[in-house]
């Protein structure tokens, strides 16, 4: 018997736009059903941090590293908002879609490859991080932070950082065999990185080894970039920080694709 020979369309390549769009549309349509809850938590959470630290701590220290404490925390919590709207949804969302909703089985049965699936989902979370990341800044402006033109770059910084953290979260979900494993990552990785990022206190007060370690923390680069966006750029240093965030994003992106391919294709 002969094999049916269909009219051959052009060979389908990698990272095709229609495939990325398809996955993004799925995310956007789903988002329309839960945006309230997600916007609520992404807005209220950093606001609470800002209020608690800004006023709680701010009553003890009025100035830190040359900034008013509210300004210091207001710019710092942008990174917190980015982390909370990328790494966490990526970890939990990816795992739920894989394990319980079995969404990926449906998506991968369509002309979408794992690489495209991971890329589109990370892009979507990066976009959300870019938007939600601005919330603390807006709140801080209400509490006395002076608006600056440089702040217009914050969505971009939050997007780049958010992409890296989303890919980090997807990787964790890809390697984890159960929900419980997330505890290790949250306690041993995310919490320390979150605290030693220069969000609530400057790294310059820490011992030297911790300062050096801090420079390896992508969240710290995000904090510094946002602060400089609000208070004035630091030339080459900021470019290097941006480069570090881009590199973090690229490396995590490839790791996420590797982890998910291992999980989804057997």
């Amino acid at each position, binding site marked *: *018997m*002969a*094999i*049916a*020979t*269909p009219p*051959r*369309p052009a*060979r*389908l390549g990698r990272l095709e736009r*229609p*495939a990325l*769009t*398809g*996955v993004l*549309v*799925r995310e956007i*349509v*789903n988002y329309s*059903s*839960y945006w309230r809850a997600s916007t609520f938590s992404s807005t209220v959470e950093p606001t609470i941090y800002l209020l608690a630290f800004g006023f709680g701590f701010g009553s003890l220290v009025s100035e830190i590293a040359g900034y008013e404490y509210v300004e210091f925390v207001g710019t710092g919590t942008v990174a917190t908002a980015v982390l909370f709207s990328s790494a966490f949804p990526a970890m939990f969302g990816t795992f739920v879609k894989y394990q319980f*909703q*079995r*969404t990926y*089985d*449906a*998506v*991968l*049965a*369509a*002309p*979408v*490859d794992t690489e495209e699936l991971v890329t589109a989902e990370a892009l979507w979370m990066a976009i959300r991080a870019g938007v939600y990341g601005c919330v603390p800044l807006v709140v801080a402006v209400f509490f006395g932070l002076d608006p600056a033109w440089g702040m217009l770059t914050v969505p971009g910084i939050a997007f780049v950082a958010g992409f890296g953290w989303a890919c980090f979260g997807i990787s964790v979900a890809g390697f984890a065999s159960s929900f419980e494993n997330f505890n290790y990552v949250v306690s041993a990785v995310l919490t320390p990185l979150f605290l030693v990022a220069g969000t609530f206190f400057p790294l310059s007060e820490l011992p030297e080894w911790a300062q050096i370690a801090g420079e390896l923390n992508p969240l710290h680069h995000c904090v510094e970039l946002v602060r400089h966006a609000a208070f004035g750029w630091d030339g080459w240093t900021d470019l290097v920080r941006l480069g570090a965030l881009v590199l973090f994003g690229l490396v995590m992106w490839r790791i996420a694709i590797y982890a998910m391919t291992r999980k*989804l*294709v*057997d």
Partner: protein
Amino acid sequence: MSADLAIRLRGVVKRYGSITAVDGLDLEVPVGTCVGLLGPNGAGKSTTMRLLTAQAIADEGDLEVLGYRLPEESKQARAQLGVTPQLDNLDTTLTVEQNLLVFTHLYRIGRADRRAAIARALAMANLVGRRESRVDKLSGGMRRRLLIARALVHRPRLVLLDEPTVGLDPQVRQELWALIDALRAEGTTILMSTHYIEEAQRLADTVLIMSHGSAVAAGPPAQLVAEHAGREAVEVYGPPPRLAEVETAARTAGLRTRRTGTSVSVLGVEGADGRAPEGERRPANLEDVFVLLTGEEIA
């Protein structure tokens, strides 16, 4: 075109560690036919389905779907393939229409054709009145129909149905059979896995019986029955010792038997006057073949 194949598998092997889920499987699905993959749980049906969408990669063998070689050209094949999974994976907080809309994008239907594609899928699955309903408000049968409709939005040339009616009550099952039959009448090629014998017998032009990862028999249902189970069977009821007795007697007389739980069926009794025990005569069926070929023990 009748000689063309939509699916051709040759000597396909898929191992998971020390378990060989698919073990040298040959499978042919001619264009325009409905082929049923019949086998007990664990026979390798679902793994076969995953291999066809390249969600599992074969260790050995050749796989071709719609003329594309897998796994290299799987994406092209998937563009013309519709898949209904065994486990419901609809987006439950979305409406029926939104679920279909998402898949018109995933299957790359142009903007101009999306509305018509959704309308057609809704009509086919008899869900027109449910367009705006959220999926978690639908009954089990409606969800299954939507799952099938979702696989049809892009008018696929080939449809894979993995256990399309598993866990559904008889009324709903019949509803789905009607839907699958309509699809068949349109000329869509179908590969359907099932462990319901009646389903295979009603819907499939050809049945392939799988056991332990490979094909143990293939052919039209009627031919398989005639070949392996003969024309008539006698069913004998009684207490277990009596059943064992009947079995021994029949085997000594050169007849094949199979257990049906509460009875013993003695097969191929049409030419065995005198040698056949007393009991209820009935036509042989596909279930006889299935049990004969895949064994009575549950693995």
